[in-house]
């Protein structure tokens, strides 16, 4: 019956995959296995040399860990915050409302612009928040000046930008929770927490996990804000993997071969983490049955 859904419905998507996954992957692998520069790709077969070079570069291996940590943290925070916001909005009624619409603004703003705004807000001398910081006695407030601080700032900016997305989806998902079930649970004397876990969560879990997975992947690809705000610094603190790959291939060295090798490794890491999350999701969905 529904299991016999024909595959041709997905044909355009599969064609897109061919253009966007298979062809570039083949090309990527070819680049990774040869000495390739931006000017002269695919010159000489060099085997795994590019992979060795990729790991020899000081910034790459640590960037994998940083990117993973960053992606997981922002995925969790955006999803939870989004859920919280959605529940608050739902509390006020069925409509997303003016408040909800205004909350969408960060999502819509170009990262380049977001980067400039935050960079100037946080500039230690003359920045928008510098006056307020000084008034609060926090003179010398300069989060972008330290490695950890800069990474946290990037994380907060990302969360600022992507929580509305999670809120939107969570809000839609909450709309499916049957109010009569919530009502009967309350009548039965269940606490709000128990109502949530027994009634609400099962209904919204698939969508929430979908959003969390997507936020994870988006968190892995953070790039524009790094370019605009920190350029990977101070030091290598905010050199997340996409930025390192960009430096290798298009900015510093034009070494496409090594950049390709780095991309393959990075994609593998993201694939492993994303597959883990997908598996968890599939299991949870099956358990809800």
């Amino acid at each position, binding site marked *: *019956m*529904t*299991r*016999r*859904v*024909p595959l041709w*419905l*997905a044909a*355009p*998507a599969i064609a*897109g*995959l061919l253009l*966007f*996954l298979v*062809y*570039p992957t083949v*090309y990527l692998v070819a680049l990774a296995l040869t000495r390739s520069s*931006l000017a002269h*790709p695919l010159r000489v077969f060099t085997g795994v040399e590019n992979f060795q070079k990729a790991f020899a570069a000081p910034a790459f291996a640590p960037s994998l860990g940083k990117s993973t940590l960053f992606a997981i943290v922002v995925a969790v925070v955006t999803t939870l915050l989004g859920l919280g*916001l959605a529940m608050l909005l739902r509390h006020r009624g069925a*409509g*997303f409302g003016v408040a909800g*619409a205004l*909350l969408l603004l*960060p999502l*819509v*703003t*170009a990262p*380049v*612009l977001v980067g*400039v705004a935050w960079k*100037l*807000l946080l500039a230690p001398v*003359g*920045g*928008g928040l510098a006056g307020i910081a000084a008034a609060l006695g926090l003179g010398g407030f300069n989060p972008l000046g330290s490695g950890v601080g800069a990474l946290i700032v990037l994380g907060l900016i990302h969360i*600022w930008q992507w929580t509305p997305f999670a809120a939107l*989806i969570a809000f*839609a998902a909450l709309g499916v929770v*049957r109010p009569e079930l919530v009502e009967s649970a309350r009548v039965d004397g269940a606490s709000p927490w128990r109502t949530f876990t027994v009634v609400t969560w099962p209904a919204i879990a698939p*969508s929430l996990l*979908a959003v969390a997975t*997507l936020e994870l*992947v988006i968190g892995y690809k953070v790039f*524009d804000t790094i370019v*605009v705000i920190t350029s990977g610094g101070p030091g290598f603190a905010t050199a997340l*993997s*996409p930025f390192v*790959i*960009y430096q290798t*291939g*298009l900015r510093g060295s034009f070494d*496409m071969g090594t*950049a390709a090798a780095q991309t*393959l490794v990075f*994609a593998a890491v*993201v694939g492993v983490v994303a*597959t883990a999350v*997908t598996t968890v999701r*599939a299991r949870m969905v099956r358990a809800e049955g």
Partner: protein
Amino acid sequence: MKARLTIAVALVIALLPVAYLLSLAVRPADDVLNSSLLPNTWTWQNFVRVFDTIDLTTMLANSWISATGAAVLAVAVATPAAYVTARRTGGDRLLSVLLASYCAPPIVAIIPLFFALRYAGLTNNVGGLVLVNGIASVPVAAWLLDGFVRRIPVEIDEAAAVDGLTPARVFAKVVLPLLWPGVVAALLVVFFLSYNDFLFAVYLAVTKESQTLTVGLSLFQGDRNVQFGQQAAAGLLGIAPVYVLALAAQRYLVGGLTTGAVK
């Protein structure tokens, strides 16, 4: 009460940077680093001068056309695909592959994509951006729609099948109308992603005629004396209409939800 206060705080945080951008846009250049959120002197000059500094009208048009086209393309491809991934046995393997293709940073794909676009005559062309952004966003759209499809009870499909409809027909006539809120959500998300895309636009649309807004904004960064006021003005002119779109469409989205899926 507490809920209202929290929402109010959330709103302030959400709007602060954009409000600051507005405050930057109305300042002259020497007032930018004045340690305050508010300008000391006001001017509207930035909104006028920015059109001389960069070709803003063309860039805005390019951004809008490529983002709209990409959204339509991505959703047209992803919606039937999502039906497959959500309903077909083993369909979520396709979804994992789609997601995997989305994982890698697009940077190294620039070269092969450049060749592919040149072959099709679509380099430095808004059409090329539509194609690239559209196909690149299919995984996001499919992932979103997959979740929405799963929320529609399977009984609906089965009832329609019992009525004699082929699976494709079930999809087109029964499921798709119920999927409408998801489709709108997906259109919006892909639109925003494409509108704000930076990397593809920078390398695949280099000429003045094809440059988009994000490229234009980055041109300010490349200047030795950055005109922050004009950059902010350009940015605001870019996002204001997009925001109006979001506002209008959001009502439709919520409306779709309240008349949404069967209990």
